[in-house]
């Protein structure tokens, strides 16, 4: 048990946590955009799967990782357009269209994998880049500055997303549309356009989340590669109170506990593996219970907008 608190192990846990948090960050920050504009997209997991496959496949065929990332973003965009069409233009119940999108993505990614690839293969994904100087700092360097590009990108995304939501005209529109679409509409802001944009932006990030899995974290594709990760990402948006910084905290908490339980198992701490695997979920719930300031969700979340209603 003491071993668990040695410096090496702590370094190990935190390094793992940073890595594990990557897809959650992409997906959850993306979902935060969609939700800030009032659209719950439960199809994140499906989009991630298609993104993961496409990135994997393009890498397999061309070896060009940048092309792979671009392709993943593109299919994310396409699926975002589909989601927007159904839940913004056609004003469908968002929870259900999201689940439809999830099923579609799960099926499509597996189908394409079956048809185009067949068996599991590994690819050469993004390599670890040690940041000069910073990467050499003992402990800190290993934890923060020896990762692959998508990992850095995910963490960079947090301040960028914050800036976008809080400091730009577009961010203002997104938040207004999520809080009071009628007000935004009455000022000539196109609610549908803003929602399309936010959902699509979120979906592009979901596609990238998938790509980060298949080209940086596991370097392969397999049916249902995400294993429900996208749903956790949606939950993290609630955890983070629709704020990128809150999401960062949530994602890190979740992944740190996950890394911690893996180390506990590896070090042979006497605890049932099932209980260990439960830990991150239990802790996320507990953290929410004890979080003092609970943020209100965007007032128009999950409410399709139609002019003239109320």
């Amino acid at each position, binding site marked *: 048990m003491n071993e668990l608190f040695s410096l090496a192990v702590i370094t190990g846990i935190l390094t793992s946590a940073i890595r594990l948090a990557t897809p959650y960050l992409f997906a959850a920050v993306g979902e935060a955009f969609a939700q800030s504009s009032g659209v719950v997209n439960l199809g994140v997991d499906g989009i991630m799967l298609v993104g993961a496959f496409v990135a994997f496949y393009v890498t397999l065929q061309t070896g060009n990782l940048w092309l792979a990332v671009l392709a993943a973003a593109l299919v994310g965009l396409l699926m975002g357009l589909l989601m927007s069409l159904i839940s913004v233009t056609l004003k469908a119940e968002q929870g259900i269209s999201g689940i439809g999108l999830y099923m579609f993505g799960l099926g499509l990614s597996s189908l394409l994998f079956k048809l185009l690839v067949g068996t599991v293969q590994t690819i050469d994904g993004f390599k670890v880049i040690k940041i000069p100087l910073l990467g050499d700092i003992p402990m800190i360097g290993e934890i923060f500055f020896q990762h692959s590009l998508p990992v850095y990108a995910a963490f960079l995304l947090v301040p960028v997303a914050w800036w976008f939501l809080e400091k730009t*005209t577009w961010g*203002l529109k997104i*938040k*207004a549309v999520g809080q009071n679409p009628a*007000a935004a*509409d*009455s000022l000539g802001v*196109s609610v549908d356009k803003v929602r399309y944009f936010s959902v699509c932006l979120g979906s592009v990030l979901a596609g990238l989340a998938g790509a980060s899995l298949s080209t940086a974290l596991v370097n392969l594709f397999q049916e249902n590669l995400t294993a429900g990760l996208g749903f956790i990402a949606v939950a993290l948006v609630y955890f983070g109170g629709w704020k990128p910084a809150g999401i960062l905290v949530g994602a890190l908490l979740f992944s740190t506990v996950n890394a911690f339980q893996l180390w506990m198992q590896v070090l042979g701490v006497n605890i049932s593996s099932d209980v260990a695997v439960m830990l991150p979920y239990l802790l996320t719930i507990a953290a929410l219970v004890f979080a003092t300031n609970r943020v209100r969700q965007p*007032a128009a979340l999950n409410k399709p907008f139609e002019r*003239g209603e109320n």
Partner: protein
Amino acid sequence: MTTPANLQKRIQRVEMCDIVKRFPGVLANNKVCIEVNAGEVLALLGENGAGKSTLMRQLYGLYRPDGGQILIDGQPQVFHSPADAIAAGIGMIHQHFMLVPTLTVAQNVALGLKSSREPQLDLERVSKRIQELAQAYGLKVDPEAYVWQLSVGEQQRVEIIKALYRGASIIILDEPTAVLTPQEVNDLFVTLKRMTQEGHGLVFISHKLHEVMAISDRIAVLRDGQMIGSRPAKGVTRDDLVKMMVGREVKPLAPQPLQTGPVCLGISGLRAMGDRGTEALRGVDLEIHASEIVGVAGVSGNGQRELAQCLAGLRKNTAGTIQLNGQDITQASLLERMAAGQSYIPEERMRDGAIREFSVQENLFLRDHAAPQYTNGIFLNFARMAARTREVIQQYSIKAPGGDTPIKNLSGGNIQKLIMARELSRQPKALIAAQPTRGVDIGATEYIHQRLLEQRANGTAILLISEDLDEIRTLSDRIAVMYEGQIIGIVARGEATVEQIGLMMAGIPLQETRAKASA
């Protein structure tokens, strides 16, 4: 954010010709024609559901007309969305404010506008410009404040600034005074006057005829979607307007004095916190007798809302007691208070008073659905409920196709009648009525007033909270004026002038005013 309002081309004249607008089952506008000129105020009158808001929403691009034309300075226009109308120089202050409460005033104003530092917001610049406009038109606001922190009057000023900021030269105000106190109405009128002087043309919608006569240059009246007529405001009397609107005469009420009974509702030392974390009630003492209407006047935000909520059991008080017929109900739950004979007509009827998607019948039994005479065990007795609903619809002349109609298809006045019916049919010992006629047309207002007086005659103690000083003065046996969470004074009917009450609302006790007058 760079174009100042006065740089934009001024509209001289807006015409709406033969406008037709249909909704499922409703012909909301039937060949309606109006015109507004720069520098004048056109008042639009009509009962609830006459089609006023619908007409204006078409001018603002929110609806597309099914027929007819909109002309600006003689040029035909097609507005696909508010963006088009805004670009053409039209602004609108909506009946229900269109503000984002979680954003600041400056953010609300900047919303949808190009920034000078695109894509970054430039809120300092917006704030500066807001301040300039505020100065020019006499609209006091703090650009950095969050909208949720603002009083209703301040929110309205933000709405006006939003329109001015966008260079609107024709501005529509849909029932702007419904939620304002007399003082705020005065301030608003000063601003409106200044706007017409600056060359703005205004469309003003209101149910309060004296306001209409005070501010407007021309008056147009709509009834059942049709234009009844339009005439200059000069020389028009209240009775003329009422007849045009309602098609019959509606006389102001003159309640007879009544012998009041023993104290029914006793409030003493009541303190409570408000939503913004400050103390909203700071020791309220008030006694209301049976067969008495006590009106509570005050500038909104001085604790009236919190007082009503405390009495209803929706807000916890921090100190003090509430008694109902000698029984302490301070800690009682809402249901217990109801059982003890208390009724409550909430201020926000669509938010707190009724459920849009529920039917007339379901709304009628929202509070009493579990009463023994309408249930068998846990099962609802629909036959009894339906019978009772028919009775009530008849008795209170609620205009509804039937008891199973969802109330979202009813007009505001009829919804208010329904809530009245629900609360009064319980034969309450004490009734708290908050803003019972806000936004309700003249006919329905008269009706509601009659009912309140009837209830008073039946021995109910009524606490009437209203921002309509005329209503308070007409109905109340005594008037309690609230200022900063306390009752600053209580005057009997006829004991004080409007001016004196107005001063009390501003925090100057009656004695001081009188002392000054006699000095």
